[in-house]
């Protein structure tokens, strides 16, 4: 099975307006909970880049920004294999409140590893903020502290999410059409 990628995706799953409202709601919740604390926001590249940029600008308090790149090498399934942190954060996390910002929670495998990785680095606490949750794919249990919305088990692109590095720049979120090679 492949996904069409020569043409633009057609089905809008989450519109720009809904995304904007969601980002505002999450930012308000976060600002409320972290007021007066040393907040370090850690965006997971590349998918969370746009979400991160939009979210932090609405969190009305001083915070520090970091990006991290994680990848898992495996045999096709996402719930096994070795995870490597490519570009780690340089900030000292000791005694700080860390908020991981992720685009979509899928199997939860990589995130489990990442949250643990940050805890080991001495963070006072580590929480997770995700724009979207795809619970149907979950293999590892992850608690999402701030969640945007839940999405069905479709291949989603746009607003930072990609298919083969395409479509990240689209301002809305789309579900890619599936088609069979035999058609």
């Amino acid at each position, binding site marked *: 099975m492949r996904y069409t990628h020569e043409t633009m995706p057609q089905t809008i799953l989450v519109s720009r307006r809904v995304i904007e409202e969601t980002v505002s709601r999450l930012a308000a919740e976060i600002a409320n909970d972290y007021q007066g604390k040393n907040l370090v*926001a850690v965006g997971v*590249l*590349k998918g969370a*880049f*746009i979400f*991160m*940029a*939009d979210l*932090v*600008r*609405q*969190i009305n308090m*001083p*915070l*520090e*920004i*970091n*990006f991290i*790149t994680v990848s898992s090498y495996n045999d096709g399934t996402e719930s096994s294999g070795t995870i490597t942190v*490519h*570009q780690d954060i340089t*900030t000292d996390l000791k005694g700080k409140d860390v908020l991981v910002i992720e685009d979509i929670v899928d199997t939860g495998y990589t995130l489990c590893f990442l949250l643990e990785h940050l805890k080991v680095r001495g963070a006072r606490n580590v929480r997770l903020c995700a724009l979207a949750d795809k619970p149907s794919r979950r293999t590892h249990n992850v608690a999402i502290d701030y969640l945007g919305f839940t999405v069905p088990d479709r291949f989603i692109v746009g*607003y930072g999410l990609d298919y083969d*590095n*395409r479509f*990240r*720049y*689209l*301002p809305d979120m789309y579900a890619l059409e599936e088609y069979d090679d035999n058609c």
Partner: protein
Amino acid sequence: MTTSKGRYYSGLQQATAIANDSLSLRRTCNAIAKVIAKSMGMTGCRVLLLNPKNDFLTTIGSFGLSDLYLRKGPLAATKSLPEVLEGQIAIVSHAPSDERVQHPQIAESQHVVTIIASPIMRGQDVIGQVRVYSRQERSLSDLDEEFLRTIGHVCSVVLERAELSQFKERVKRTCATAPKQILPTEMPAASLKPVEFAHESEAEFANLLDFYQIEWLYEPRSFPLAWNGEGVSQMFTPDFYLPELDMYVELTTMKQDLITSKNRKVRKLRELYPDINVRLVTRKDFARLLAKYGYGPLGDAKVEGVGRILYSQTQIKRRVRSLARRVSKDYAGQRIVMIGVLKGVMCFLSDLMQHISIPVKVDYMDISHYGGHGDIVKITRDLDCSITDEHVLMVEDIVDTGMTLNYVLAHLASHRPASLHVCSLLDRKERRLANVQLDYVGFEIPDEFVVGYGLDYQGEYRNLPFIGVLRQE
């Protein structure tokens, strides 16, 4: 698989094209050195000019060599591989132990094993050399020799053309009864001794240049500014010369009244020597440059939060949209790869890409920040995808000295993209050192320390939705 003959053919093709391009001599020679090293599969290369008066060789172009190699000073042609003076090609197969090598300890520290030197001829005379360096042992085939000889002819033509244009300049200037000119060939050679700086800030500036791997010479040349009968009554010696940028830099980290007198000297120098590119870097400029990399506070001033808003959210939004429209129009029918250097560009890149109406791929880089003496810039996150034959748009939050951008563009160009352009939200022209061309600019801003919309001061203020100016006490 390309044969070495094929590689040499395309190397010569590139070299002749470069020779015919109207770049400065330094740039032409740098580009040719790169072609030579790449075609031969060698680590580094340099093009050297022979001074007939004292038989010294001066580097006029190089590629892939460390500062140590470039700054070890002029080579005595009669001692270093003298057979090249006779028009022969010389090969050193184990540099650290070969007595024909003038600085074997440097060769060893740089792991250079093989050195091949080939003459640049004009008629029967040797006028310079091409030297290639390798970290592996290698022999010299007939084809290698043929390539080196031919590229030598290309260099010879390049040099001849440079001399011709210099001569034309001289004639023009004599006619205009300008003061006598020191010609580049009479430029004092770089010192063999380690440099001793007159001032601490000069040493710090040299460290910063080293970090960006920008070649420099300390006080290499004095400019007569006033004449008294036969003699020179006033001289001016700028602190640094940056050969790759073809620029002189004078640091003034002292009191205001001294700056005024220096300003006057710089103005005079510009009047008398219009083709000399000279920049004054003040104490404020310098402190800001260091502060930008989280190194030292912002001069003597204390930061007191954001003083005023320079561009509001709405102003930025409008400008980003108009830039996106221009980019979409200019690249219509194509797809582009947008590349940003983290983290400052996060807001701009994120907003810009969402307003582009043509297919976009995005990639991110991160580079290390200046950490003091002996540090060298490193790419800590490189591109995920190949950009060869792609149309690349480098997206920047702010360009001031241009040193970072200069470094990143050279890195990107080495991947041979189909095209490479730059889009920067902010342009602080006043502070420019490296001459980088910006194709799309959001706002030209005054010389103030700005934060917000991704830009930080020591890690703070990035998440402000507007661009503000720091308040300093």
